[in-house]
């Protein structure tokens, strides 16, 4: 969509500012914040994939965690030590393992497309829920691949001998700050987030993106315009799965160890929460939503001692974990009650009212558009 030049300039400046701040953060942040930030980045990447699927192509999925798991485990297996006694691997270079894991998830998405292509709306949503349970079952039981209940370690990421997980090569120091594993991983995360975001924005505004949006609004119209609907729906599932997997790889790298327990229904639903409160279909909304949902509990737990009200561990009363769940639940309910098109919709409305005020009366009032929704899905 074209914007007035001033708005576009403001936008560009804002993006540059955010990037600069993000680049500088490792110089000041402590490990906790770096790690939390990295968790958020992993979630952001996967959430972008889900918002493309749900918001752009209109396919509701509750199975995102399955594809995240393929990414995480795929990386660990492909990069893993072949001689490890517990859960062996192929010992590929980490970069190849990353690409392989992403491709494997794409393949899994393609394999699911006979089901996803036939189902709509809530049927698809709950069928994909089945994937999560099946996937978790495999993770628990395919012990040689996954390490079973105890999970398996993620091989540290490195590129041409430059490790992103520990201090090799030794003694990398920037402006007096020792750049260890977390700092280096931070930049890898930033790079992956940046590329993911950029690609998603490009996709939305391209031939495939428009085809998907038309499918979302009317499969009949899309078909009549020459779009091969089943193929594009499958392609959307594949792309979304690959995004999920890339996020999964980063997640594995940050955790260092992954267990099947993480990739359950809760994770799938959390991803849906991220994109819904961010605003379904909005790439920016997915970024904000993912950051919010990931950081909120981490921060609340960390700073629980600063909050009054809270009971000490062991006594009755509201614990920090409880409080973070309650805030999480309240946030969902309140955001959706007051802006059922999510934060992105809220932002659009605030922005337009700001512009209106700035331009004075008489400027065209952009009516609030329905956010691209899955409304049709219920039919």
């Amino acid at each position, binding site marked *: 969509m074209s914007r007035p030049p001033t708005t576009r300039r403001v936008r560009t400046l804002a993006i540059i500012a955010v990037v600069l701040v993000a680049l500088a953060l490792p110089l000041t942040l402590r490990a906790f914040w770096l790690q939390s930030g990295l968790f958020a980045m992993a979630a952001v990447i996967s959430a972008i994939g889900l918002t493309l699927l749900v918001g752009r192509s209109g396919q509701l999925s509750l199975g995102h965690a399955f594809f995240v798991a393929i990414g995480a485990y795929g990386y660990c297996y492909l990069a893993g030590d072949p001689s490890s006694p517990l859960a062996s691997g192929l010992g590929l270079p980490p970069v190849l393992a990353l690409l392989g894991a992403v491709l494997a998830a794409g393949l899994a998405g393609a394999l699911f497309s006979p089901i996803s292509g036939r189902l709509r709306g809530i049927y698809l949503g709950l069928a994909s829920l089945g994937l999560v349970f099946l996937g978790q079952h495999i993770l628990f039981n395919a012990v040689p691949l996954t390490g079973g209940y105890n999970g398996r370690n993620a091989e540290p990421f490195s590129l041409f001998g430059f490790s992103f997980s520990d201090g090799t090569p030794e003694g990398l120091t920037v402006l007096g700050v020792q750049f260890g594993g977390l700092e280096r991983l931070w930049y890898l995360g930033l790079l992956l987030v940046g590329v993911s975001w950029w*690609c998603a924005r490009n996709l939305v505004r391209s031939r495939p993106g428009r085809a998907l949006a038309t499918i979302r609004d009317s499969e009949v119209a899309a*078909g009549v315009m020459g779009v091969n609907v089943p193929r594009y729906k499958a392609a959307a599932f594949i792309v979304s799965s690959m995004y999920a997997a890339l996020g999964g790889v980063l997640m594995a790298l940050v955790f260092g160890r992954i267990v099947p327990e993480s990739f359950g229904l809760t994770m799938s639903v959390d991803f849906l929460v991220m994109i819904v409160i961010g605003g379904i279909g909005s790439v920016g909304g997915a970024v904000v939503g993912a950051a919010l949902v990931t950081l909120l509990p981490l921060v609340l737990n960390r700073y629980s001692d600063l909050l009054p009200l809270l009971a000490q561990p062991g006594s009755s009363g509201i614990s920090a974990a409880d409080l973070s769940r309650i805030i999480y639940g309240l946030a969902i309910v309140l955001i959706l009650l007051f802006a059922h098109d999510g934060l992105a919709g809220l932002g659009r409305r605030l922005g337009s009212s700001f512009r209106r005020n700035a331009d004075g009366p008489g400027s065209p009032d*952009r*009516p609030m558009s329905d956010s691209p929704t899955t409304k049709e899905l219920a039919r």
Partner: protein
Amino acid sequence: MRGGGPVAEARGATGSSAATAGTRDALLEVTDLHVSYAGSVQALRGVSLWVPDGGIVAVLGNNGAGKSTLLRAISGTLGREGGAIDGGSIHVGGEPIGRRGASDVVRRGVLQVPEGRRVFAALTVEENLRAGGTAARDAAARDRARGEVYDLFPILRERRRQRAGLLSGGEQQMLAIGRALMGSPRLLLLDEPSLGLAPLIVEQIGEVITEINRQGTSVVLVEQNAAMALRVADHAFVLEVGQISLQGPAAELARTDEVRDRYLGVGAEAAPATDVPAAGATATDVPPTGATATGAPSADAGAARPAGAAVHDLVVEGLTVRFGGITALTDVSFTVAPGSLHALIGPNGAGKSTCLNVLSGVYAATEGAARYGGRDLTRLPRHQIAALGISRTFQNMALSSTETVLDNLLVARHRHMRTGFFSAALRLPGARREAAAQEATVVRTAELLGLGGVLHQLVSELPYGDRKRVELARALCAEPGLLLLDEPVAGMNFNESVAMEEAIGTVQRELGISIVLVEHDMRFVMGLADRVTVLDFGRRIADGTPAEVQADPDVLRAYLGTEQEEER
């Protein structure tokens, strides 16, 4: 009862003479009503009308004139469709009801029979009636009402244990009326009760309405079938693009040229005579196949269509379509010569849109074939039909309203583009070049149709007429050899529809493509078409040049149905 005065021209914004005249003893009174959808689309612009206690009032108008909006406003169901009353008032029995909920309106004695009957198909006849009676005061009132309904429609009593979905169309209409009567209405709103019914049944419905009225219920009859409506009603209002354009006693209104021409379809015989030979000549000038690619279209048209699709014969043979137990099309055949404009006409529910839906792969044909360029369209998926160079518009428009006009138009370029997910995501140079080139093509087509200024607006922000043009522009952007148009002027006012007529004529002449046009506005079709196929109840009843078709007695009977009966 009101009446006796001369037919009033009420072309002003408010129709104020009507409003002030209607304050006495009116059961329903609508005053200067303004309604818009989604905050932008104006559906009603100052409508005033009234229904005297005990009267029957007809509201006439074409598709999209605002009839349904008016009914929604009265029954309090605008919100469901995203509409809102911006101004004016609605009074029933002297009390305002404009902004209350639907169930409240019902409890004040205003019940609506929705368009298309909409009986609860899975419920039995008796259960349907019960559903209609939920608003009744008590069980006794309900039983009494049910007895009256069964007396009025004995067939319903016979079939009371049957599922409503198994009833015939006419019986379903009776059930829908009976269901509303269960609420013991003071005012009954009937939304196109004649839709898709045989003339004989329409007559019956007309009689039923008269009888219901005789028993003391006031009636608002919203109709496209002006003949029946004007015979039954005392007073009539003509709604045109959200405004009352004419009103007066029904009998007098039926005699005015305007109504005869536009709504009764008579009196238009002479009009197309001059156009037809010219258009016919265009058709015969075009060689059978692929001629247009080598033709010499004008500069503008050439710009819109740099590399045309081949144009072929379209041969429809023995097309039959059944949905469940209903046969929508029976053994329909016709041929569209390359480069000609072929109109499919017929009353509402005749199967015109079904036919278009089969040609574009939306519906599956039960039997028969539609050959185009050596392929049978009935055996191809939608996108492969599109790949043959066939594109279409939708009657109710199927645009992505949350996307810009430009993006909507660019979708039509899908089959002319190659960019896939990978090159799009990375914005590879090839993808960028292609996007720029295609955007330029689309912009040219949009400018041709006067949409250059709105390319970057969201479709949801556009007025109705503009959206209709976007819909046409999108179909054209696909560079079709065969263009299927489903009621392109539905809901447009006279000037808009004349402009659209010109645009379609230009497109067809300049680009040399074939067009199949579905319309039930006779006047519009007769001026444009080279050849006309008339459908009625899913069967072809006539096929020929506009002049031939207009002289055909079968057509007159089907189309003007009740006019004939009056003459008998």
